[in-house]
């Protein structure tokens, strides 16, 4: 019998039941690692859903291979999922996995190399390879095990394929459910919930498929019951309010329906495309359509045309697509046509890391346009905020007749989390098309000299015929080359940002309002940063954090908030130089993108810790860097400590 007392930071209360040692822990992280095409997503989806339904906080993350269907049993073929779940709300993917189910040694190895597995990780691995008839496979297995022996992993051999074959003929369509059964038993999941989930997911397939999947789950559970000597118990607190669970792209998709979006104009690009997949499936039930344009330029143009004509329009893309929309975004700002642009950020520059997370489009979103083109940029901080950001974005875009760029990223896009079921408001659905006659004398840009705001005239409105233009123009929308005409337009378009800023509240500080260090983040890193800060605070450190949502214009009061801390440091998933590296001085250093913005904004010497590993930041790495910033003398090795 093993005692799992090596799992630190967790409340252990081992209760021996027969031979089985049940450890009670407040959270756990599991990963399912397979070849691409072996169904890890489905397994994880059901497992995550089940945990959520049982009242646990959950966060799941996809592990996506670079190829569509890479050769099996290689390190590059790794496909899978990480599920972190706990008693309380889970806001990020956490640090490392404590338990893994691996379908072969190579995909496991890839996870090991990425430092994804906790030092004491329990690994349930397919038993097929160790004594495989093919010597090459045996050798690969041995070498992998040798490489992984640097860690304290506990390996448990499981005849996954063998057992699955007892129920289905093609193990690739069964091993995942068997694995689900193993996990169900280890974590005492409610099998009736699992069965319902299976029935739902395979609702378009035959009853036979559903039955055999359920059988597989039961077989997995039975195997675990008979052969494993450990279980984990993660207490759950059933939610009080109704909740829903989804990933960030689904949240953006449904959020845009909630926001009354009638047209989503897009061109496929990872990791944004699944927003439109989501929408393509359902939006027509809401009187809207997804238009796949010939390229991102056209996608922007169609959205602008539609919005000009009175539809609520959205365009969705990622970095390279944003680059292509650059010119059109400036046009929308210039003619003051409302437009929501959703940028699901990925690793850059150029094609970069298409499936991976990065927060590197901040400065280009704000400053990308030649000429002065003020626009609003917001970054939801959680999957729940992904949903609501679409409603907010539409509202801002229409109120201020401007472009709103919403920055999410691959972490939010594919992470799955539950959140309070949104209360929908029928007013969000109101279309802007107003076909009443234009009041006599109303000019197309009847700028309120104080606010720069003006009333929108939409084609079809009697008496409103006028021509909009991307050329400098006056209030009548007539081309104007006169200096004062040009300057007036520029002032009015800029003024709107200041007016909008005046409607915002200062950002909240997580932790005390003053202290030694303030960690500042934006967007998707919210959960991980707060978790790291909490860890440091639990040790008595005077650290707080502040997560920004409004990046252009910036929320009010930032300088005041910052000035109450000795040090301010941003944490971002993007690139910055490290002072002390060759040629890198305080003067030549290139900063993280938010840090740069805030330095100009506050004139405070804001430091940054950034990283662009192509994966979400881990609380422990952030924690390390908090400590390093607080105690620079200690010279802690970043990212290495466990």
């Amino acid at each position, binding site marked *: 019998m093993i005692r799992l007392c090596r799992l630190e930071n967790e409340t252990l209360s081992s209760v021996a039941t027969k031979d089985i040692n049940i450890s009670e822990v407040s959270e756990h992280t599991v990963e399912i690692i397979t070849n691409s095409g072996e169904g890890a997503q489905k397994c994880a989806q059901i497992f995550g859903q089940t945990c959520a339904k049982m009242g646990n906080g959950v966060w799941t993350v996809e592990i996506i291979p670079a190829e569509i269907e890479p050769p099996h049993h290689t390190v590059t073929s790794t496909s899978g999922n990480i599920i972190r779940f706990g008693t309380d709300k889970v806001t990020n993917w956490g640090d490392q996995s404590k338990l893994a189910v691996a379908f072969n040694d190579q995909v496991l190895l890839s996870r090991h190399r990425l430092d994804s597995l906790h030092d004491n990780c329990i690994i349930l691995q397919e038993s097929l390879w160790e004594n495989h008839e093919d010597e090459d496979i045996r050798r690969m297995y041995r070498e992998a095990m040798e490489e992984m022996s640097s860690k304290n992993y506990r390996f448990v051999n499981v005849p996954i394929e063998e057992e699955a074959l007892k129920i289905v003929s093609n193990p690739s369509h069964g091993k995942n459910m068997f694995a689900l059964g193993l996990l169900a038993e280890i974590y005492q999941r409610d099998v009736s919930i699992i069965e319902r989930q299976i029935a739902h997911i395979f609702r378009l397939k035959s009853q036979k498929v559903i039955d055999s999947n359920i059988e597989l789950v039961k077989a997995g559970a039975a195997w675990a019951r008979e052969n494993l000597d450990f279980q984990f118990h993660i207490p759950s607190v059933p939610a009080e309010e109704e909740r829903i669970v989804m990933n960030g792209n689904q949240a953006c998709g449904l959020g845009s329906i909630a926001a009354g979006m009638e047209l989503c104009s897009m061109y496929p690009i990872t990791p944004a495309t699944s927003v439109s997949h989501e929408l393509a499936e359902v939006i027509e039930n809401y009187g809207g359509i997804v238009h796949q344009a010939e390229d991102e330029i*056209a996608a922007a143009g169609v959205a602008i045309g539609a919005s000009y004509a009175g539809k609520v329009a959205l365009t969705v893309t990622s970095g390279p697509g944003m680059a292509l929309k650059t010119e059109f975004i400036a046009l929308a700002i210039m003619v003051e046509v409302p437009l929501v642009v959703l940028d699901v950020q990925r690793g850059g520059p150029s094609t970069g890391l298409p499936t991976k997370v990065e927060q590197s489009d901040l400065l280009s979103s704000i400053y990308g346009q030649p000429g002065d083109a003020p626009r609003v940029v917001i970054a939801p901080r959680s999957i729940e905020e992904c949903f609501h950001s679409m409603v907010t974005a539409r509202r801002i875009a229409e109120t201020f007749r401007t472009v709103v760029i919403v920055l999410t990223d691959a972490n939010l896009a594919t992470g799955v989390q539950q959140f309070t079921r949104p209360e929908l408001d029928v007013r969000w659905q109101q279309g802007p098309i107003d076909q009443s006659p234009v009041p006599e004398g109303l000019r197309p840009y009847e700028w309120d000299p104080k606010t720069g705001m003006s009333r929108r005239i939409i084609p*079809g409105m009697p008496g409103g015929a006028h021509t909009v233009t991307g050329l400098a123009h006056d209030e009548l929308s007539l081309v104007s080359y006169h200096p004062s005409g040009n300057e007036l337009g520029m002032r009015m378009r800029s003024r709107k940002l200041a007016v909008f800023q005046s409607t915002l509240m200062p950002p909240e500080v997580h932790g005390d309002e003053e202290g030694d260090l303030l960690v500042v983040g934006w967007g998707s890193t919210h959960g991980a940063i707060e978790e790291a800060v909490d860890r440091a605070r639990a040790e008595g450190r005077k650290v707080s954090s502040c997560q920004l949502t409004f990046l252009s214009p910036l929320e009010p009061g930032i300088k005041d908030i910052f000035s109450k801390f000795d040090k301010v440091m941003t944490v971002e998933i993007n690139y910055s130089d490290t002072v002390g590296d060759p040629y890198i001085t305080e003067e030549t250093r290139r900063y993280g993108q938010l840090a740069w913005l805030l330095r100009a904004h506050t004139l405070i010497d804001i430091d940054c810790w950034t990283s662009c590993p192509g994966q979400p930041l881990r609380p422990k790495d952030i924690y390390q860097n908090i400590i390093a910033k607080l105690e620079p003398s200690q010279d802690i090795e970043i990212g290495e400590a466990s």
Partner: protein
Amino acid sequence: MSSLAISLLDLEADAGVCFEAEDYQKRPGKWCAGCGDFGALNAVKRLLAKEQLQPDRMVFVSGIGCSSRFPHYVNAYGFHGIHGRALPLASGIKLARPELDVFVVTGDGDCVSIGAGHWIHAIRYNMNMVVMLLDNNIYGLTKNQTSPTTPLGYSSMTSPHGAQLPALDPLQATLGVSNASFVAQTADWVPAHLYATLEAAYDHPGFSFIRILQRCPKFTPDIFEQAVKDPARTELLVHEDGVDPPGLEKLYEARREHDPKDIDEARSLARRDDMIRLGVFFRDDSLPVYEEVRAVPKVTPQEKINRLNKEFERYAV
């Protein structure tokens, strides 16, 4: 204003108003004297008057170029966009509001060069709009650079030794795109033909692509000179499904019966450069129109909320 009042007002606005061609001119066109764009504007004004279109129910969309200033001069809603991108803007407008009449005005640089990708795809989308390509074989607004339709050897500021490639023929290219539904050619100096072509285009339910040979006295004064002077160089394609405005028979003696349904022949005629051919090369009113195949039933706000609430079930914890 109560909604009742509004609808009364609407009625009033409609009642008894009769638009003359000149009512559609918002302000004087600012092109060079003799510019062919004036001819296009005049023909359009006639069409609008003939159809008695409400200024408030039409949108003129353009890119950037001399020709793309067109919307500024028409009494209608207008969107003077960015270079090469008139068609995506127009598509968005039409997709959003199929009930509005959409006219696109573009130049050979705007449409055939920087806008080529959108052009090819807009032909295929086949949305119901009239597209006028004002082809002066040159970049006018930026002052004399070679365009894809500039004749081989013709010189400009960017090709001082003459264009190095044979001109790209917009008609053949358009006819090569699947789902192309209306392809015609006319010339600014044959107003009756230009007008009749516009009429046919407006009548066609789909993407009506008209290449208008357009004189630019400023930069390509000689390109169409011979054609203008010598009508014998021009052949009119005539057919009961095409255009054949009365009064041209005398001047334009070369006439050819061409059935616009015959795409092979249309392509072949477009390819031959022995004469300038004006007329409808191809027309098929039965092809799928994008805004129609994409039309979805309207849903009330409340119903949307209900459906979305139901959708949430799929995601319920």
